[in-house]
């Protein structure tokens, strides 16, 4: 019977360990590395290698297609991008989406977390129901809000008509200055529960004694929130902010479903632009360069958050 090479290798390794006089620590380390190999292979294969190959691709003029010749253009893609007004407008629009949606999610999430933390009647149901918008897939959420905003059949128009606030149905998503805020509302509805649940879990873990001591010292509820709980929540807020900012800056699916980037590209975000360049226009080199810039912007934002909010001494 022929033994598979992998069995041979592993058996050899086992004999190697047995014959040599390694310390227990060394043997543990060796086994640990061995156990890590599959994970490392996966990480290198599906994360690091694509990142490296995308970075290399960003220096080429590469069209989609079979056996297409790639032309090295150095920083050509980056230079073209920086010189394109559309790129900067898209970055501005994406920052607007990110700042507005993350801010709203943080404020509303904190308010709801605080509400649950105060254990009002039905708080368990409230906490459970929070999961529902978050559990809805983004595509479904987008389709739902697209219908809500529909000019002909939308629930928003129906509601406003019944309240007597409008006389005619309004084509909301055709209004250039309103389309992005409407997409933001849809995103906030979807992702705010994520922030609320993180903050609620953090609030539940805070020492009660501090709050009680402050109350005994005469601090009112407002003061206790601002002076005691909020500073202690900083690590949880940092986690929520980084996770949401990274996600919001890369927003794609909800825009794709609700507006297709319209009207007049007023909801076109940087990831959507990357998608168009890569798949619709077949400009893979440009798409790779855009992808790298997205990563760069995300890293900067994460760095800023960490500098502002991370206090190792508090851990």
């Amino acid at each position, binding site marked *: 019977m022929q033994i598979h090479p992998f069995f041979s290798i592993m058996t050899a390794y086992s004999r190697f360990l047995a014959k040599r006089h390694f310390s227990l620590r060394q043997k543990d380390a060796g*086994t640990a590395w061995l156990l890590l190999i599959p994970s490392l292979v996966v990480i290198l294969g599906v994360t690091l290698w694509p990142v490296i190959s995308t970075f290399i691709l960003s220096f080429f003029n590469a069209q989609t297609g079979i056996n297409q010749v790639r032309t090295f253009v150095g920083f050509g893609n980056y230079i073209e991008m920086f010189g394109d007004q559309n790129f900067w407008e898209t970055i501005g629009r994406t920052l607007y989406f990110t700042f507005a949606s993350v801010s709203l999610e943080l404020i509303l999430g904190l308010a709801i977390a605080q509400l649950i933390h105060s254990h009002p009647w039905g708080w368990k149901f409230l906490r459970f129901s929070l999961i529902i918008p978050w559990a809805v897939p983004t595509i479904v959420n987008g389709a739902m809000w697209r219908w809500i905003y529909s000019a002909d059949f939308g629930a928003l128009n129906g509601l406003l008509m019944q309240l007597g606030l409008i006389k005619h149905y309004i084509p909301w998503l055709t209004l*250039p200055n309103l389309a992005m805020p409407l997409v933001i509302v849809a995103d906030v509805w979807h992702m705010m529960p994520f922030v609320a649940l993180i903050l609620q879990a953090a609030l539940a873990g805070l020492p009660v004694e501090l709050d009680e001591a402050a109350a005994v010292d005469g601090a009112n509820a407002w003061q206790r929130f601002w002076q005691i709980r909020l500073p202690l929540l900083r690590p949880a807020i940092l986690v929520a902010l980084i996770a949401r900012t990274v996600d919001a800056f890369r927003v794609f699916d909800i825009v794709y479903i609700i507006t297709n980037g319209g009207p007049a590209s007023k909801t076109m975000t940087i990831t959507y632009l990357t998608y168009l360049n890569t798949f619709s226009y077949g400009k893979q080199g440009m798409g790779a360069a855009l992808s790298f810039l997205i990563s760069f912007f995300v890293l900067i934002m994460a760095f800023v958050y960490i500098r502002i909010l991370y206090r190792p001494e508090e851990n």
Partner: protein
Amino acid sequence: MRTFYRITTLLIALMLVVGIAGCAPAQPAGPVTIHILTQDQAGMKPAEIDQIARDFEAMNPDIKVVMEYVGYDAIHDKIVTGMAAKPPAYDASMIDVIWPDEFIKAGYLLDVTSRITPEMKAGIFPSAWNGVTRNGKVYGMPWLMDTKYFMYNKDILQQAGFTEPPKTWEELVDQAKVIKQKGLAEFPIIWSWPQLEGAVCDFTILLFGNGGAFLDANGKPSFNNEKGVQVLTWMKQTIDEGVSNPASITSDENAVEANFLAGKSAFAVNWLFQYSDSNKTDVSQIVGKAAFAPMPVFAAGAAAGIKSSSVDGSSSFGVMATAPYPDQTWKFLVYLTSNEVQTKFSAEMLPIWQADFQGDALTQLLAATPANPVTVPAFLGQFPYANERPTVSYYNEASKALQLALQEALTGVKTPQEALDATATKWLELAK
């Protein structure tokens, strides 16, 4: 302890072997499976194509057909991403009339010239072959010959006091104002003007109906000349006057259909499938009220002798160049596009076969579905006026630029002239 290490290492080795064995290419056992991508919009309905696939499988037990349906606007990018895999995600896909140049340049489409029989060549409409033929080579099997149609709601027109549908766009505006005034429809016409391909199709209809064209004799953009600007100015004006539904700016063809079938519009411009749907009681509130009329033109176009103007929205099925089972895939496509199948399922799309529109075959075709006595004459009357969008390899990016221009003008972000000029400049850059 030694035993523990041995067991651990052996277990890891086993995991690796099993994992690597799983990556080995599997040999097909039993029927060959082919994956076909197409749209859930114009043309046959998914349930009909599924039925055709099952019939084919019954006749060919060695081939299993897996159909995948997506919205039209997602197909192009699905093809591109699907072709990145080896073997490709799809063995064949619907190819819109505007994509062959790009996909041939990318090497995605199999040259099927040698598979075309003389009967196919002679039997299918020449214009359908034009859509898949480049430099004498054929890159697909014609599948759908479609064009946009002008449809109106007979009841609304009658109540407004009109006995005839409009022949020119100016006449349409006059009729629309009366319809609006009488409260029969808040916005009398609905279009497909979103930041998607549908907007370019509608612009094509209007541009050629005004005597314009996308490119001049030298191949340079000409849609930003006086005729093009007039068209875009008219489009914006109809929205401002409440003649065109402002929701057109976000409506794809499915949304246009939903609006028209709800009885909210007197007029709609859409593909053929809308007519058949208009007579289905489960989706339509205007059963028996929809009718076709020749697509109007502008008065200036009519004066220049243009009788009607629409857009070619035909499509084919292309076999992917790297597909592992081209023979089986082609066999299915031949069946799918056969005369017999196309006649049987002709409610939403009419056959590509010329003979079906003559003699006894025509009688048979007219009787094939309840819609055909209306759609067949409409097709024969409208398709000859279907205008082509530019056939260039960079069409998708050029079209996106034009879609943006149309939206900028329609939402008042730019003037029609500014928006079209910027797009013309972009087209020149792309052509370099």
